[in-house]
């Protein structure tokens, strides 16, 4: 998949709870879109003092044979860069690079899947659910957030699949608690063969553990901070175990953002484990 850089016109900005969903005209990105892909968006304009892009998972795309060729992504106003973004309106241009990253792997035939989204981590799971439903799979959603306003995609999920379980930390929507409180039951009642997840690191680790206990795989998309999104800066690395047993720091942007949870060494994130390839060369540096 080759990424492109383009000036994308904002078609619409839609408020969803505490988030804004952007729809932008980007036919070259829309045509290659697969669920799990993300885009990197420049913020602040040409003279911006914010020199790094912000990465957003795509929540959907309409290929150019059906319309102008648009992609959608969801923004939460966290810091000055995203604050600038949420001030944009339809008709303005955004400098966008994409599609980036590796999509969620999906089986060629039907499967039974549970999709787990934390906060706006549900964004890439909505188009994924559609792909899975299209190949005859049974899909159920578990969506969680701190509060009701921080849920994303509940309505869209309910339109697509029969079973959507919602949790919030404060009990303002669905069950009070964490997605991981209800995930084991969801896996068991649907006899799930795979779990897909996107959300904060701690949630992904817990989802991976639960999937492991049920002897099924979890494909998870990480939300690691990135400077470039295209594989040159080496800032977004995670310790990941390869098939040959060797662990390396790999780039979330080009080697991810989707990983098999089993291969990510979650407990070593933010550390330099001694058995990592090349850790022995770090002495004195």
């Amino acid at each position, binding site marked *: 998949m080759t990424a492109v850089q383009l000036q994308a016109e904002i078609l619409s900005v839609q408020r969803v709870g505490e988030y804004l969903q952007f729809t932008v005209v980007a036919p070259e990105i829309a045509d290659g879109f697969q669920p799990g892909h993300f885009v990197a968006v420049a913020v602040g304009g040409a003279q911006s003092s914010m*020199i790094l892009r912000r990465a957003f998972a795509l929540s959907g795309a309409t290929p150019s044979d059906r319309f102008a060729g648009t992609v959608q992504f969801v923004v939460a106003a966290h810091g000055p860069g995203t604050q600038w973004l949420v001030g944009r309106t339809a008709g303005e241009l955004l400098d966008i690079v994409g599609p980036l990253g590796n999509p969620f792997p999906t089986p060629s035939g039907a499967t039974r899947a549970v999709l787990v989204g934390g906060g706006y981590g549900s964004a890439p799971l909505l188009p994924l659910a559609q792909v899975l439903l299209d190949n005859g799979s049974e899909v159920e959603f578990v969506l969680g957030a701190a509060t009701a306003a921080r849920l994303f995609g509940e309505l869209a999920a309910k339109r697509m699949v029969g079973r959507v379980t919602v949790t919030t930390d404060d009990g303002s929507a669905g069950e009070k608690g964490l997605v991981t409180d209800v995930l084991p039951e969801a896996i068991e009642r649907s006899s799930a063969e795979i779990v897909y997840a996107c959300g904060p690191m701690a949630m992904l680790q817990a989802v991976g553990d639960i999937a492991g206990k049920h002897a099924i795989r979890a494909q998870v998309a990480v939300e690691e901070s990135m400077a470039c999104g*295209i594989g040159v*800066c080496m*800032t977004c690395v995670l310790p990941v175990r390869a098939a040959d047993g060797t662990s390396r720091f790999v780039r979330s942007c080009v080697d991810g953002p989707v990983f098999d949870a089993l291969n990510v060494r979650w407990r070593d994130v933010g550390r330099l484990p001694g058995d990592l390839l090349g850790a022995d060369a770090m002495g004195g540096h």
Partner: protein
Amino acid sequence: MATMSTRLATVTLPNPVLTASGCAAAGRELHQFFDVSQLGAVVTKSIMPRARSGRATPRMAETPSGMLNSIGLQGPGIESFIANDLAWLAEQGARAVVSIAGTHTDDYVLLARKLAGHPAVAMLEVNISCPNVESRGQVFACDAIASSRVIGAVRRAADPAQPVFAKLSPDVTDIVHIARACADAGADGFSLINTLLGIVIDTDTLAPALGGVSGGLSGPAIRPVAVRCVWQVHQAFPHLPILGMGGIRTGLDALQFILAGASAVSVGTAVFGDPSAPVRVLAELEAALDERGLASVRDAVGLAQRNQRARVSA
């Protein structure tokens, strides 16, 4: 149209815009945005003898008009670099400036020997902003004697056809003093500047933002420091070519470095925000030279210094 070719010691490049070490990997990822053989050269990420994991995350913090990074020279080691990255650059017909790094003088010598005779290698850029294990971890580039020792050893070991450029740190009292030590040791030119050391504290976690605590500051925030270093070193050694870098985002930024005395420039951190920045900067630089009636890059090198002298003597 201005003549864009430029010379770095014995090497002639078709134009003066290069990538910067650590900001372009080995060119492959940027090739989807533009043909890397269009650049003056690709400056590759500093390579070391063995594979290195790099440091623990977080490795990056955005700062006003810049960023702080602490990657720790993650890389595959020289054998894999030659077999994969350098081979790929050669296939593209791209020129490579290979940045080499080590923790002992012997590391640098080994790397220079391994790269000798490789057709894709236009020149070597010696990253001496590394801790010197033989000197209690003091950074080579902050010590004139250690800098001189490394540059001398590399110059003797390297292919005579490959110019050796010393990449200097701005974190010194007198950069001309270090440059002189490198020049006396046989440096064919200078790369100016490496990042400045900085620390960012995360006010949510109440701890340093980077896993490595301190990191290298890059981006437009450091540009005036870089232009000052180019100015000082060009003034002291007008016969030695300079590859200038530090916060170049536009063609006019690049022109500042050339007017201060650089014969070529590297576009670094700007690539993270704009992957096509190097070719954009090249086009903007060419237009800027034309607009100012400058016939060639060569005419512009150090022109601000000549203009300043004329202004003072007038």
